[in-house]
């Protein structure tokens, strides 16, 4: 997408969200507080910086206020992790499912497992998620491999996203409940032993699936992937059966990824996801010759435009190869968020579409906390 096309996209999205017949109650109300007229004064992407930061308000407003009047579909509510306070809520009808179709294509490029049963041409509609459109249909009697999702479900979109993906790829979705807010709370309260017990509880449930089901695909957070690798039986089962692994939710260093790919589970295809409920999924793109990083994430633009910016001056993009803070803009008909700074740092990776948005590498939490010394260590 060229900068001019991105600007046109921004104008179209702003027109949609601020027109009385299509916009959401939230943005129509908000328009009155703005010092400018979004319909006439937002001419392109750079003008989005004129909006105030609003994501904070999405923790408290009724989620339904975010639904544009112009959208007639059924909406769902999803929540962020809640690391930094009460969860931020978003609404979604079909947009995130479109994102999943994109991820599905990218997984094919990675050679990620897909069941043969799912590759048949489809013409008869079955009872399935209508948002998926014509999807695969299963030949009776073909075996369906299993996909184990070891991550958040419930209000966190990722669990549902993986379920949709498993269906698209002709696999049976198995999951284990994981409450990330509880885990974070345990760590925050210094209850590392309880966190360990909770992890062991999750690994035990994963084992129950791994022992009895034909698990070929796994999606898990890096700490849980580590816990599985550290458990001898779970590790043997993974090494013997799993052909594809998606990791997400927390960062994984380049060496950690190399260790998993080359030494621990060399038979599996690894695909990283960066993202969250707000952004959607920035799926790792296949490696190319000359890549400086072993994992480069490709964000779902222009529905979400992701850029790496200077933390001191978020209006300035850092140069390719430099690290900065992740800034996102949600620019689709179901949701408009002019800009939001994630609490993540990443290296900006140049790609042919760099003018509009960035590819990312080496994503990690922004360093925080001041220096204070007591003691000699």
């Amino acid at each position: 997408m060229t900068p001019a096309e991105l600007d046109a996209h921004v104008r179209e999205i702003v027109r949609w969200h601020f027109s009385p017949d299509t916009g959401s109650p939230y943005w129509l109300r908000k328009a009155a507080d703005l010092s400018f007229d979004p319909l006439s004064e937002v001419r392109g992407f750079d003008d989005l910086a004129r909006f105030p930061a609003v994501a904070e308000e999405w923790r408290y407003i009724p989620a339904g206020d975010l639904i544009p009047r112009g959208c007639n579909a059924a909406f769902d509510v999803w929540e962020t992790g809640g690391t930094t306070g009460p969860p931020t809520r978003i609404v979604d009808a079909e947009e995130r499912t479109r994102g999943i179709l994109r991820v599905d294509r990218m997984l094919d490029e990675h050679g990620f497992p897909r069941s043969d049963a799912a590759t048949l041409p489809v013409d008869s509609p079955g009872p399935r998620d209508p948002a998926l459109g014509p999807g695969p249909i299963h030949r009776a009697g073909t075996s369906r491999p299993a996909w184990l999702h070891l991550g958040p479900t419930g209000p966190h979109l990722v669990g549902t996203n993986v379920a949709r993906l498993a269906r698209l790829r002709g696999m049976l979705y198995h999951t284990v409940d994981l409450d990330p807010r509880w885990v974070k709370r345990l760590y925050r309260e210094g209850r590392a032993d309880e966190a360990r017990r909770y992890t062991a509880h999750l690994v035990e449930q994963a084992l129950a699936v791994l022992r009895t089901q034909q698990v070929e695909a796994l999606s898990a957070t890096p700490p849980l992937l580590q816990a599985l690798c550290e458990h001898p039986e779970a590790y043997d089962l993974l090494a013997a059966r799993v052909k594809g692994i998606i990791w997400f939710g927390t960062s994984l260093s380049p060496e950690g990824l190399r260790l998993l790919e080359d030494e621990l589970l060399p038979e599996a295809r690894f695909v990283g996801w960066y993202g969250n409920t707000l952004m959607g999924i920035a799926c790792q793109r296949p490696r190319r010759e000359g890549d400086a990083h072993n994992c480069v994430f490709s964000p779902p633009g222009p529905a979400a435009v992701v850029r790496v910016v200077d933390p001191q001056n978020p209006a300035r993009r850092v140069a390719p190869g430099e690290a900065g803070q992740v800034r996102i803009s949600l620019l689709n008909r179901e949701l408009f968020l002019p800009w939001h700074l994630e609490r993540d740092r990443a290296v900006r990776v140049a790609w042919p579409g760099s003018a509009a948005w960035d590819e990312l590498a080496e994503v990690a939490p922004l360093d925080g906390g001041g220096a204070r010394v007591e003691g000699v260590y």
Partner: protein
Amino acid sequence: MREIPIWRGGRERTSLDVRVLRDYRGAPLARVAAAPSLLVHRAVRELREAAEEHSDLPALWDAIAAAGRLLDTAELGGCTPDEHARLVTLATGAPIADSRQALAELAAGMAEVRGALRWQAPGGSLEPFMTNRIEPAPGKCCGWVPVGRVLGFVAPSNHPAVHLTWVLALAMGWAVAIRPGADDPFTPWRVLLALREAGFPVERIALLPGGHDLVPALVEHCDRTVAYGGPALASLLGRDPRVLFNGPGRSKVLVDANAVNSAGPPARSQEAGATSAGGAAGPEDPVGFLVECILHDGGRKCTCASALLLRGEAPGLLEAVAERLNRLPLLDPLDPEARVPAWKDFAAARQTPAGAVEADGLTFVRPGLVLDVDPADPRFGMELPAPWATAARLPEDADPLPLLRGSLAVTLLTKDAALVRRCLRETAIQKLFVGPIPPWHTEPGAPHKGRLADFLFTAKAFREAVIPWT
């Protein structure tokens, strides 16, 4: 720039995760490979296999002794002992004379490994390490066995001599996984190179530089872990019985006025820096002695005095100590005369109650002794990696014991035998010295926080009888 790799399975490994270690002027000094926490269980499994075989302990001791001699004399990995000390100084800010002395101290401890082990074994004999049996009394025999095979070691960067601890564990037949301190990955690397050179089976060692995320993994996968750290690490580890945690030492010196007053007026002739390194100042100079209690090794050891307690009236004594610390010149740590460590983090230095000063583009915490600090004041006994301490005065008849609790090391300059007895029995004091012996006094292998062997070995009922009916 120097490169410090990961070491596991008996060989060097590179890492895609690399941290650039900077010196105290901010210049890049070394590229340090970082191990992901995911690697820990793998490395520990390799160590477990390496330690599985029966250990020929005397052969290990010979190799460690030879390595100790190499450590202080040989060029290892292209680095002479002097160059090594320079690297440690640049990376930590410790004065160069202290860095060089610490290397010699560590080397001597290794060279005399048998002597160090004698502190550790029941009865002072090396036999139990080899036979796994002890005879507490004639005719009374039991087993004495390691409680595991692999020791995790979360090293600090404040003083190179701590690395003798894991070498002693190797000497006891354990394998060790070391997470070097962030600022000093050089010393364990040099020890490893010396051991390899000396023919020690180095597949019993894993060197895993990296962040705090390695610590829970080490605790989880190793049989025992020795860790050094501050409050953040303490809360991470909790009260795990598998961990021997070394937190701030908050070491103290109690001075009874009647034990020093006969020394006459405080000597002023002795210039700061002129005291012989490592040796205690003589009892004829209480001021010099107390200054060294605080200043030794730049005040960076957990056994350097963090607080002085004066019981009774000794006019001018504390003032003289304070003045001498105050007059210390703030020199570049590479200056052979330097005694005061430089700090790498100005913000951290400024947040200390001592306050930061800048000199010649370097940051220091101003050396000093804060007088008349109320023992209830949070500053009292607070430990900083600097020659900085607090002092409190107590009436002649006061009981100082409550204020001495929670100290790693205590020196008592007292004639109060009852106090000595009570301090000896006090569980919240780990090391006790009576008379003009500084709290940082140590001998290789001597108890520090208990004995390492008591953490790594246990007694077990064991009795053999001949089967009479066959």
